[in-house]
């Protein structure tokens, strides 16, 4: 079990309990977190689960995957800490992870 903190663009914070093995996107969808659309269902194919990972957690979530890089590179909103939540696997190591959701998903 890992607690994940989702901070909305307006500052509202929600904490969910995620299961190791599921993705951060699945944890968000399963707990009704607003601001994550996940149109493609986790295929790294739509960039509608875009999140900004808190700087302190960047090392722990690992590097951007190739497929993710392709999708993020068509976004105007990409930042150095941009990730697709469907490509971050929950693990005990990520207990306490903090991500911010953008105001809009493409």
């Amino acid at each position, binding site marked *: 079990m890992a607690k994940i903190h989702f901070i909305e663009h307006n500052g509202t914070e929600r904490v969910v309990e995620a299961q190791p093995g599921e993705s951060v996107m699945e944890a968000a969808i399963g707990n009704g977190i607003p601001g994550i*659309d996940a*149109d*493609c*269902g986790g*295929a*790294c*194919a*739509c*960039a509608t689960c875009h999140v900004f990972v808190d700087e302190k957690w960047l090392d722990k979530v690992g590097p951007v995957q190739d*497929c993710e890089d*392709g*999708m993020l*590179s*068509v*976004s*105007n909103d990409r930042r150095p800490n941009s990730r697709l939540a469907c490509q971050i696997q929950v693990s005990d190591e990520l207990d306490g992870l903090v991500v911010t959701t953008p*105001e*809009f*998903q*493409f």
Partner: protein
Amino acid sequence: MNAPKRKVWSMVGRDPETMPLEEIDLSHPGIWRANEYLPFLARLRRDDPVHYCPESAVGPYWSVTKYKDIVQVDTSHNIFSSEPTIGIVDITEEHNLPMFIAMDPPKHDVQRRTVQGVVAPQNLKNLEPIIRERVCSILDSLPLNEEFDWVERVSIELTTQMLATLFDFPFDDRRKLTYWSDVATAIPGGGVIDSYEDRAEPLGECLDYFTRLWNERVNSEPRNDLISMLAHGESTRNMPPHEFLGNIILLIVGGNDTTRNSISGGVLALNENPEEYQKLRDNPAVIPNMVSEIIRWQTPLAYMRRTALVDTELGGKQIKAGDKVVMWYASGNRDGDVIDQPDRFWIDRPNARQHLSFGFGIHRCMGNRLAEMQLRILWEEILKRFHTVEVVGEPERTYSSFVKGYVKLPVRLHPL
């Protein structure tokens, strides 16, 4: 004398269940106009999901018909290229218009980023009141209790007004946009043009018109319309004229045909499913979900084409470098392995956003949120005014295997 070419058969009226698999040719516009395509798609999904058609009017090509295979092709842009064209017809260099939908990274990415701001969700907030005002004025001008053509009076009018707004295009000339869009996607013999050569004159007129606007905008401060964005954008301001025309056509077609046909398709689907129409009247809060379902149901662009860059395998079939590969979104959207009860039009469908109509991967529809917003506002305002938009005659469908749409949809309005 040369041996006679194999006759290009008509697909219309053939039995999808018994005809030889290799003769199934989804590129035939006739089955789409006749609304006979669904059983052919179902047969291929069942018997030959990655299907090779060895001979057709557009040459040999692969058809990809299952949802998951389509996602795989769409997301593998290193294997399946969008160049030189995303249409099923191979066009000669001189007729080919370069546009970013038919480009691979990195050029695609920079050109797309230049213009996508105009349809970015941030900008849509500003557009919402304008769209609503225009929707209201169109709906308020419609005749009650008498037959008229919904395509002409609503679907075309609304999408054309929207395009004129996005381009900041002279409003009184806006029907030129519709005409250029129709010309650009027309198939010879379908009523708009007789040959591809016929496109030269209207597209030349289009280029001249937009060049005038470009010159105007490039000499003034950058603004928030598409022409100004192209004229001032670092990656686009030095585009050669035919590339400018290509991208203009892309934006016109992208914002025109697609939403237009989803506007018409929604009316038709609700008429064919009166219990869903009643659900909508009882609970207008379902509109955003219904909009996604309408877009799946209609699938306004039936396919996108890719070209294999290397030898590869898909669904157990060997695809060779250079082969033409067509992803039939219209089929993937009816794939029961991914979509629950796929042949049902179900306005409160769970996971309605999960459909293929916008494509997936780096070429995913850039205007998807704008399209959804236009449809949402339209239905919100329809429900405030009319009990029923009743379809009172057979719809006339587009002669195209690409643009899946309607030429005419006769309706009668019943006020609340």
